């Protein structure tokens, strides 16, 4: 069994609960396990970066220092956490001033960071460590004929292209195909979901989301697969608000781990599919009978 150190990030404990549930369930059935990093703190995401970068980087570094004692790869499912932890890592490596400032701050808490943690995204681990072949062997209920738009969001591939292309990533496309789904061509796959602007300036944020949903439907998608809790939230939760302003049919928005989980034959509830706000029946109906 392979075991990873797990950095959930705040959303996976709140609005993105079903992402955590499905990720753990999927990994378990593929003989891998996540051990949660003890006493992790907020990564220092976008909002924090806008007000004080030094603080954001120092707080992110506390997580890296806590993780370093463990020597395993640190896996996060959230795009924003993934970016900020990687950003801190790179700034510490490149800039002596940052390194000195952070190491003094960490020293006072009894921590030290040498710079050796390998930060990974959950998608990267599933596709590149566990591998599509291993997953394919365990697929018992492929989602035949389910047309899915793969939506990556931005910060998993930008600015750092760590394991996939910055403008046309395909890692999730491949894992969705392995789950039996049909992946539609979706040119908006890395276009911004609006971030927190769906809440702060709805007239802008909701319009951005509307375009993403409309395009997915125009391409024939019956569902959108996401890999980031903020993307999933934005695309799913405001649909009725958007529909009151623009013409839009409901579109199920799930995590890629929920689709993979269904294909692996895991029960919908264990994958958190009951937490969906937009009904996911169009997806469940596509589950085929057991493949022997």
């Amino acid at each position, binding site marked *: 069994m392979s075991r990873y150190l797990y950095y959930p990030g705040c*959303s996976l404990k709140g609005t993105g609960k079903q992402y955590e549930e499905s990720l753990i369930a999927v990994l378990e059935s593929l003989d891998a396990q996540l051990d949660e990093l003890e006493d992790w703190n907020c990564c220092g995401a*976008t909002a924090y970066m*806008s007000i004080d970068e030094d603080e954001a980087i120092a707080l992110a570094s506390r997580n890296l220092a806590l993780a370093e004692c463990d020597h395993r790869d640190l896996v996060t499912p959230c795009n924003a956490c993934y970016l900020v932890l990687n950003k801190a890592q790179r700034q510490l490596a490149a800039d002596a001033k940052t390194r000195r400032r952070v190491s003094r701050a960490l020293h006072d808490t009894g921590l030290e960071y040498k710079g050796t943690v390998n930060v990974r995204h959950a998608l990267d681990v599933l596709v590149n460590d566990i591998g599509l072949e291993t997953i394919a062997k365990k697929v018992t209920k492929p989602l035949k004929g389910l047309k899915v738009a793969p939506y990556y969001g931005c910060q998993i591939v*930008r600015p750092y292209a760590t394991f996939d292309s910055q403008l046309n990533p395909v890692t999730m496309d491949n894992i969705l195909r392995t789950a039996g789904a049909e992946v539609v061509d979706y040119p908006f796959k890395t276009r911004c979901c609006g971030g*927190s602007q769906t809440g702060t300036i709805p007239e802008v944020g909701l319009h951005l989301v509307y375009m993403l949903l409309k395009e997915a439907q125009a391409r024939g998608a019956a569902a959108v697969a996401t890999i980031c809790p903020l993307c999933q939230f934005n695309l799913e939760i405001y649909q009725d608000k958007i529909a009151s302003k623009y013409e839009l049919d409901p579109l199920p928005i799930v995590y890629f781990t929920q689709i993979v989980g269904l294909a692996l034959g895991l029960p919908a509830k264990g994958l958190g599919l009951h937490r969906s706000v937009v009904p996911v029946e169009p997806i469940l109906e596509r589950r085929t009978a057991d493949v022997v």
Partner: protein
Amino acid sequence: MMEPTTRTEADRDSKFARWIGEVPGAETIRQCIHCGVCSGSCPLSVYMDRSPRQLMYLAKDGFKIDVLSSFTIWLCTSCYACTVKCPRGIQVTEVMYALKRRAIEEGAYPKRFPIPVLAREFRKMVRKNGRISESRLVFQLMLRTNALKLLGLTSLGLKLIRTGRFSFGIEKIKRTEDLKTILEALERDREEVAA
């Protein structure tokens, strides 16, 4: 009174122009060729009062007031589309971050404009608890910008409660004293640099 739209030498702040050139990621800003790839790749540019290209232009030439009072810096969601495409290697997203921080420092933004308020509330919560309790953050934001909007949020809250995605509690790390220690150390460092 109508405001002049033409900018002249008198509107420039050369200190600001020097400062922007020293922002990490903006080292090549003076080599900007105004090709507009940043604006073209920006999904938010259609909603902005000034396009990213215009903003880079104004910033590098030191038109401080125009830059810091622009909505553009707040509309940037840090999706990095411009940064990976800029042919001159300007890290436009990092420039936007630096401008946000500068605008907050100088109080140069509309007071009840929700985006900087969100940033401040976000930091406050992390400084105190080490983690974000999403539902509480949204509540604080609305309270400080437009309390009436809280009513509109009821249906959203109910959806989250029904699906078990609403957190009633406060998310908190165990060693909250670590946060205080880190912040104090950074503060000392800042004082030393200033001295």
